[in-house]
């Protein structure tokens, strides 16, 4: 989780991930951001996130992203 937060902060400087806004549904992250993030996550956690995983529910918060990574075995 800490590692995830570090990656996120590095990728998106100046974004507060814990202000309660849903990252996707409230438009904090765009599809371009997601794609960038997925590349990083795949590398960092040695997982393989697929198109099927790219639904807002999986990316709306840090914990959701974390859950996804865990689910994929990272």
């Amino acid at each position: 989780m800490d590692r995830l937060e570090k990656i996120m902060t590095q990728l998106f400087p100046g974004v507060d991930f814990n202000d309660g806004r849903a990252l996707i549904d409230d438009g904090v992250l765009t599809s371009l951001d997601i794609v960038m993030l997925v590349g990083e996550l795949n590398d960092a956690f040695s997982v393989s996130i697929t198109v099927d995983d790219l639904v807002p529910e999986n990316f709306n918060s840090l914990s959701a992203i974390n859950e996804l990574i865990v689910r994929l075995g990272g």
Partner: protein
Amino acid sequence: MSINSAAFLLFLTVSVIVYYAVPKKARWLILLAASAFFYLSYSPRAALCLLFTAASVYLGALAQGALRKRERERSETPADKKRWQRRRRALLLLVLLLNFSMLAVFKYLSGWIARISEPLLPRPLILLMPLGISFYIFQALGYLIDCYRGRVAPERNFFKFLLFVSYFPQLVQGPINRFEKLHGQLIQGNDFNADNIRNGVWLMLWGMLKKILIADTLVTPVTDVFDNFNECGGAVILLAVVMYCIQLYCDFSGGVDLVRGASGLFGVEMEVNFCRPYFARSIDEFWRRWHMSLGEWMKNYLFYPLALSKPLNRVAKRLRRGGGRSGRLFVPCVSTFIVFVVIGIWQGPGLANIAYGLWNGALMSGAMIMEPAFAKFREKIGRADGSFAMRVFRTLRTFMLVVIGRYFSRASSLSQSFGMMRRTLFSFTAGAHPFVLGAGSWAVVAVSAGVLFTVSLMQERGVKMRERISRAHPAFQALLLILAMALVFGYFTAGFSTAAYVYENI
């Protein structure tokens, strides 16, 4: 039946009354019947194309479901699973190919077919684009891919599925609706709700006024300048392109408001397609506020698959190893480029459309690559991101970039685009060929655009216009309604053409 006609208003009124008059269970049948009537009144032959898409996607989706079930039940080893997946994939590609081929024939090959058939047939074969073909094909295929991905369960009743594809409000110019959001609303049989009627009517009126007062008034002078750009001064050309941006927005978003409003009368909420795009502060944001349902579709069914595709990511991985930002930016930049070229091609044949795609792809990638430099620059001039001046500057800059893009998307050839740009840049004069719009029409456009701008600004600030109007004094509401409807009726009824003076040259 054009949606800008008294006949459509009458047809809609009757459909709404019948819809709520029948029992809930049968209401979806009324929508299907109305859609069939609407489409057949256009062209029975075009309906065959729609039926083909509906049938092929219906069967394709059922097959996806069946194969998925077998995949679950019968795969014992990962290799088995792979095999089933390959089959599913092949089937998906087949249906996609069939439908996209049909679209391509109408979109790109019709001119060619007319040419080669001319010496062979007594009359050249002219294929007219079936109404809404892009929209229903995209919508249906989105559903098919969702089935393939297992995100939605296939609809078993063909007629219910046919309604999803042929629902008449979406047929003219979208939006491209998602199955999971729309389908339930279509078949469940919505309860009568006066709020829906009120909201729907306001939205329709708003859309119609945008279209008839602004877009339709601007068509002739804008077309005139684009057709005769060689005689026009650069200033006139720039004015015409800016006016075209306004015309296009009012035409497209007005039309979508009209059909979303119409759909709302049945209690069916369709996708939002525009969110005041000219207030966007970056091209990226513009594309998230312009033709949003197409953007969503492209994102889900083209951009993500591309961005997560193996070849791209292999390259990205290598780049990341070298450190720096290139590894990070490679995938989004390349995918964006491809998506925009596809959007350009989708708009129609010709190099100008591809150039339009490249222009937008370049802007988006450029913005990503240059972002650190921009940030530094902003810091240097001491303007925070959120300052008013910066917001205005970014909005205007984005609009300007959109305007430049329209030199490509509206022109009929790339040489025309460049010719017009050259004149704008190097002979910025009034020229001999003016922008022909009478004083009265200028006044109509100026006042309407002023109202549109004010309302949009209020909406940007979070004001819900329809709610606010509903709280106003009843007399005000009545007057507003009468005014809007009088304008609409006055423009809609019976054709009008100033060109129709019979004795122009006696």
